[in-house]
């Protein structure tokens, strides 16, 4: 059965110059208005296909397309008005122009705004972030991809619940401004996730796993199935521990979410300039463990954080963020850079045509250590293995207190029982200073390539 019309008219919107034509139409209306100095169009379009499952069987399938245009106009005093629409009719485009003017007039002057981005000759276009196979993926293909997860129903200990899904998306981003930028880039993503629940002897445990890549070929559903089941299985034996300080080993997932995500959030220059970052005072300072070096590389083929230009059209470039414990740089867009009279380093971000300009990271690479992760764990007489905490730190102070959602007691170098009602508290600056070891093995967690990380002396509270 032919489930859907397998055309990819979304990409044609870019290839056929549809958005550029819309940008020129809007510009032709706006260029008459002397109060407007800067004009920027940011358009996105995507087509997504999702299949969700429940109890290990397909439950529903979705397909949808979304496309929209965001318009920013700025006057000579830095007042900015922004509008957006998913309707490309003449009437709607005229309406967003009118609204943009109204909003610009309502805004405060912004003395720190300098200029929008200019065209560059240094765009580094990277291959392999668009998988054409995902243009035509249909639910039958997805059902085959999900089979290893469905097969968990055949295990001796049958899951009580088995849910999750597969989603894919193909799309693109187009940026145009009156400084001469007119560029677009297409991308794709594929994502698979599973959540498993097991019961044994009245004890319930859950496990989860997911993978996200630009290319379908990189998705390993067997790994997602195995690791989510294993996490649930390990959780069936629970324990609490004595409240005191322990050495803690972070899994790659915990390293990514507990250490790296807060760091990349807090080197956002907008946070720093507005006193909202615990790292604001530490630029060029030796503030982390000397075995920590971190790079941001936006040009790695096939990775989710790869892009040739940022959300304002500024070329992206690799940055050495932390070098042997020294914090080297903050992330800037044109606005935060203008405030400091420096050049943007290409980290403007927008989550869609309807979102304001923010700042974000690309691909994060944490340099590996020398020891094998198994050896790091084997050396610990009594410690904690943190697989995952759903908590976020206080970005202003760096204080973290969170639940160990998934974690294990390490006893005599071996992972033991799963931890129940156990919490971890530390200031992140101390956590970064207390990095004792990084493993030589690393894993990709979304946009971050991260090792296992051993921290010394972390306060653990438990029932």
């Amino acid at each position, binding site marked *: 059965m032919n*489930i859907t019309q397998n055309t990819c008219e979304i990409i044609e919107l870019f290839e056929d110059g549809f958005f550029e034509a819309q940008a020129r139409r809007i510009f032709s209306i706006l260029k008459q208005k002397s109060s407007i100095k800067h004009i920027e169009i940011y358009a996105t379009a995507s087509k997504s296909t999702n299949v969700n499952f429940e109890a290990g069987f397909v439950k529903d399938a979705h397909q949808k397309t979304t496309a929209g245009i965001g318009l920013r106009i700025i006057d000579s005093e830095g007042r*900015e008005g922004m509008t957006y629409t998913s309707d490309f009719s003449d009437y709607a485009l005229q309406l967003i122009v009118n609204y943009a003017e109204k909003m610009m007039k309502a805004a405060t002057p912004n003395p720190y705004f300098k200029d929008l981005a200019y065209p560059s000759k240094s765009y580094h276009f990277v291959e392999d972030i668009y998988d054409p196979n995902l243009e035509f993926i249909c*639910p039958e293909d997805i059902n085959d991809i999900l089979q290893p997860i469905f097969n968990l129903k055949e295990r001796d200990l049958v899951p009580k619940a088995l849910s999750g899904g597969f989603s894919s998306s193909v799309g693109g981003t187009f940026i145009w401004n009156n400084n001469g930028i007119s560029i677009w880039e297409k991308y794709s993503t594929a994502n698979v996730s599973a959540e498993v629940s097991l019961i044994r002897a009245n004890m319930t445990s859950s496990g989860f796993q997911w993978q996200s890549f630009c290319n379908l070929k990189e998705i390993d559903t067997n790994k997602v199935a195995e690791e989510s089941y294993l996490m649930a299985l390990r959780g069936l034996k629970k324990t609490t521990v004595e409240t005191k300080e322990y050495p803690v080993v972070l899994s790659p997932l915990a390293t990514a979410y507990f250490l790296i995500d807060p760091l990349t959030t807090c080197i956002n220059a907008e946070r720093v300039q507005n006193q909202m970052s615990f790292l604001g005072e530490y630029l060029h300072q030796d503030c982390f463990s000397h075995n920590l070096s971190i790079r941001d590389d936006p040009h790695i083929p096939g990775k989710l954080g790869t892009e040739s230009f940022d959300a304002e059209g500024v070329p992206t470039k690799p940055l050495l963020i932390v070098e042997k414990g020294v914090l080297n740089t903050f992330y800037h867009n044109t606005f935060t850079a203008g405030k400091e009279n420096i050049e943007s380093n290409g980290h403007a971000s927008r989550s869609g045509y309807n979102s304001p300009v923010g700042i974000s990271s690309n691909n994060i690479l944490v340099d590996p250590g020398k020891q094998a992760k198994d050896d790091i764990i084997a050396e610990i007489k009594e410690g904690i293995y943190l697989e995952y905490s759903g908590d976020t730190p206080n970005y202003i102070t760096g204080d973290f207190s969170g639940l160990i959602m998934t974690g294990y007691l390490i006893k005599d170098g071996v992972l033991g029982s799963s931890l129940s009602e156990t919490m971890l508290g530390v200031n992140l600056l101390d956590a970064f200073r207390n990095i004792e070891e990084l493993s030589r093995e690393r894993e990709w967690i979304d946009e971050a390539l991260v090792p296992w990380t051993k921290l010394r002396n972390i306060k653990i509270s438990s029932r």
Partner: protein
Amino acid sequence: MNENSEEINIDLEPISIDREDLDFLRDLAKERKIEYFNIRFAKGKMTSFSLLKKITKSSSIGIGKGFSIQAFTKGGYGFAVGYKFNKETITETFHNAADLAHWSAQFVKSPFSIQQTDDHKKEYVIPQKISIGNTSPDKKMQMLLEIENEAYYDPRIKSTNVNYSDLEVENIIYNNFNRFVRLKNSWVFFILQAIASDGNRQEGYHVSHGRIGGFEALSDALGLGHKAAESAIELLDSKIAPGGKFNIILDPMLCGTFIHEAFGHTAEADGVISGESILSEKIGQKIGNPNVNIVDNPYLETWFGYLPVDSEGTETQKTQIVKNGELINFLHSLETSSRMGCEPTGNGRASGFSSLPQVRMTNTYLEPGDSNLDEMLSELKNGLLCVNWKYGYVDPIEGTHQFKMAKAYKIENGEKTQIYRDAAISGLTLDVLNRISLIGNKIEYDAGYCSKGGQHVPVGSGGPYVMLKNMIIGGR
């Protein structure tokens, strides 16, 4: 409705579609062997402002419209989205959804039917005392700056961050049982963070306010700038909370988050059916002390979860979830009530037309008891008074939950002493309702957006002061 032509009147004129215009879909459903479908149209306008240190970071207006069709047959669903309100696009989108539903149905092991809903046509309009649409962007900005300025009453306030949004949206919901609902909804949401510094340390505190209705809601936010600044300054003297076991009192805001996260999510029937709720087998059982009564009530007009009709066209209702400590009801959508053989409770909510309805809470709260705060502090004697929330989350399968409180006070001999920051509370849902000892006599509420499956919907949560014994606090 214009057939085969694009509708262009999008600036909040009513959607020019009536029930008769959609009759053809019922014939199409029969032809395509679709047992149930709904079609949901939306057209709306959103205004947002973001300010940093009294300077506009972003000021925007967005307009949009679209529709989705959810088709169902033999237990399988298909879902497709369209943007043009004409017969050709609707028909094409229906076929896409029907194809996907038939495809999904081949895998279903336990087919079920969707129960019939009443054939009716109704219109609901959320009243606006001050029209959002007729209030100029200048006026909105002026009020936001006024509230933000309040924070700078003390030189230790170094920074502020304000985010405001208002939304006016018209929804039409139609299904194959000929139910046609038109809902004109609107709301305002405001959040402010103040950052204080004494030269050595910096601390932040955020406050928020949300109301279903018109621009009058922002008047209620006057004073919040000062309140956030006061707490941020107070936190400059805070210490890190000590980790360990404590007897604690939750304030009404934290109590609301606690009830929403620790309990409300586990009472959503979609998780119960999929085996992903710790409450799956507990209906009719005692799960808390006899003084525990928990309610989901969409009729509270001043709360952010006020909702007369859900996204499936079901009229909402007040649902008593726990009565005298006994679990008596789950929250239902049309699907979950059909599968569990009970009536829908009007909790099928979607964050927008392009998302599927899920079982969601509206306004959820713990009903008041008979203690006052002084009595509770005296009974607590030594412990923590935990105030306001930053965020919370739950693992409904294992029944673990976690909330981050905004601040806490050490209680010594019934008196507030040292202030603490960044403490977290964790527990097990089936254990913690039995730890409630005293319940305050006055209820307060808070507004927020609840996130589930990538969808954010406005909710209210609340309760009185409540005392819990022997809780785990994360700190250092």
